[in-house]
């Protein structure tokens, strides 16, 4: 580092931060072929609690698997089995439920669920059948909401960002082009009537920075909308039948963040940065009828937009704010705006979940919200007061603050579905919550 930068406050700040973190790291022994060793050198009670929790979890999981093998019903298509009604406190079992019934379907072995979406009274789930992401085949699982029984249909490629519309499901596939910043984004469709998948089209995107495409897919007003976080952010309007690009919307403000949000809402397609995004929520609406009207809507606060949920012709935004220098003072609100982005109402400061879903005109959310990491609440949001009520608390399969959890929710068949633990090392669990 040159002398100028050494005296620059940002350089000093970040260098000290890196040094501080590095000083606390204990380098684990490297063992080739064993993959990544799990490590955590944090002493104190947290470490002991985790070891104890791990041991208890291992015993419980082994016991559950043994019971499952001996007695439990299973699906030959997925290797999953129903584990509802187990020991309280065991993963997959609600630890507390008020006025709702909760049932769980636990997946183990080489079956790895990824995302869920509801369509036509059925729950659909993308999943990988195998441990190696680079070789294992993927499938769409049709899950009967009443019996929680899955049936698998093969996909030509593993995909993500699944959406439903037009009697079909759509998802993105990705293929990086070696030696360049170009990524092929494929759109694959799956007909929910013929139960066959079709590769629709391929869209080349140039991705700056990480060589990983930052994209999101939405279905609205009869079209597919593909957002690409490229050097110049872009939205493609795509025909859901032919896969052809009908219109390319440029001039889209960079929305940043680690997980771009794209939601079909009043007046068009709404975009926001999502968790980790810039503090000012850059919410944008485009007009699907003309396709070229992009209107930047002012943020109602300076908080980051955690999620977007269209409810009853209005857009509900989950917003989080961290005041300067007060890392313990995360505040969360739900803010409702109309199709023009004008403020309608906001909730009191309160906790709410990380992932929303509207069921029969009512909003539900799942995830820890401001409640910490030990348990995972399911929240019901009062449509009038916007106050949230915890209607069930589930024990997560693993620490929800360290692993992906409760980020995929769906509503169908009069129930709320929550997929927990997708992508983590512990078995994933699908919860059905019936009001």
């Amino acid at each position, binding site marked *: 580092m*040159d002398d100028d*930068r050494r005296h*620059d*406050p*940002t*350089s000093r*700040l*970040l*260098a000290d*931060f*890196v040094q*501080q*973190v*590095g*000083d606390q*790291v204990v*380098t684990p022994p*490297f063992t*080739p072929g064993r993959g*990544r*060793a799990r490590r955590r050198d*944090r002493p*104190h009670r*947290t470490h002991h609690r985790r070891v104890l929790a791990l041991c208890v979890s291992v015993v419980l999981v082994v016991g559950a698997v043994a019971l499952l093998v001996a007695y439990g019903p299973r699906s030959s298509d997925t290797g999953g089995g129903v584990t509802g009604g187990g020991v309280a406190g065991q993963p997959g079992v609600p630890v507390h439920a008020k006025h709702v019934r909760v049932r769980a379907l636990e997946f183990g072995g080489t079956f790895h669920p990824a995302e869920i979406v509801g369509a036509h009274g059925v729950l659909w789930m993308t999943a990988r059948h195998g441990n190696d992401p680079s070789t294992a085949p993927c499938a769409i699982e049709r899950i009967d909401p009443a019996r929680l029984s899955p049936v698998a249909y093969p996909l030509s490629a593993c995909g*993500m960002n699944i959406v439903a519309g037009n009697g079909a499901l759509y998802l993105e596939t990705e293929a990086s082009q070696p030696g360049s910043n170009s990524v092929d984004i494929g759109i694959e469709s799956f007909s929910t009537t013929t139960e066959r998948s079709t590769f629709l089209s391929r869209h080349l995107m140039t991705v*700056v*920075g*990480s*060589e*990983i495409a930052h994209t999101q897919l939405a279905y609205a007003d009869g079209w597919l909308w593909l957002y690409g976080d490229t*050097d110049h952010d872009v939205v493609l309007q795509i025909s859901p039948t032919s896969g052809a690009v009908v219109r390319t919307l440029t001039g889209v403000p960079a929305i*940043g*963040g*680690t*997980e771009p949000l794209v939601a079909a809402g009043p007046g068009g397609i709404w975009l926001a*940065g999502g*968790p*980790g995004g*810039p*503090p000012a929520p850059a919410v944008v609406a485009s007009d699907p009828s003309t396709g070229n009207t992009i209107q930047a809507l002012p943020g109602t606060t300076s908080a*980051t937009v955690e999620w977007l949920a269209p409810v009853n012709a209005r857009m509900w935004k989950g917003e989080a704010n*961290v005041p*300067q*220098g007060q*890392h*313990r003072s*995360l505040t969360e609100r739900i803010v409702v705006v109309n199709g023009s982005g004008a403020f309608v109402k906001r909730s009191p400061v309160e906790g709410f979940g*990380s992932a929303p879903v509207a069921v029969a005109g009512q909003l539900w959310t799942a*995830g*820890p919200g401001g409640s*910490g*990491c030990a348990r995972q609440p399911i929240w019901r949001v009062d449509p009038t007061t916007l106050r949230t009520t915890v209607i069930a608390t589930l024990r997560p399969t693993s620490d929800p*603050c*360290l692993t*992906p*959890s409760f*980020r*995929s929710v769906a509503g169908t068949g009069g129930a709320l579905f929550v997929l927990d633990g*997708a*992508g983590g090392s512990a078995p994933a669990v699908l919860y059905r919550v019936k009001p």
Partner: protein
Amino acid sequence: MPTTTFTELYAASYARLVGQLTVITTDRDAAEDAVQEAFSRLWRQWDSLSGYDRPEAWLRRVAVNIAISRWRRIRRLHPLRQSDRDAGEDDAAGRADIEAALRRIPVKQRHALLLHHVVGLPVAEVAQELGAAEGTVKSWLFRGREALQRSLGVEEAPRG
């Protein structure tokens, strides 16, 4: 077992890379996962990569890609709550504040800040590494610095 050279590289750069990756992930666990995975990939290709002038730069780049890829694919929760929980346990004073401040700026800006202000690459090399124009990188650095300073109340150094 790993060769002496690989072992030396691992021992010398593991902790430093975890620290650097934490600037981007703002989560030490995620940073360690990514760095360990990057070393695993390096080991598998050690025969062809051992001659690199700067293997640590290769590792950093791969680890960043792994971390961002994982972020997207598994959709991590907003890690703000992790800091809430960890604060007071073992976070050094101010670290949680910096992590929170970093989370509030886009990943590309964090990446640029890391490469320029921590690794010490000049803007032209940062631009090359990120595949962006120099003007774009300058803009990311400016905005990133501004956001960090605003969040943390750090005063900008006089520039001449």
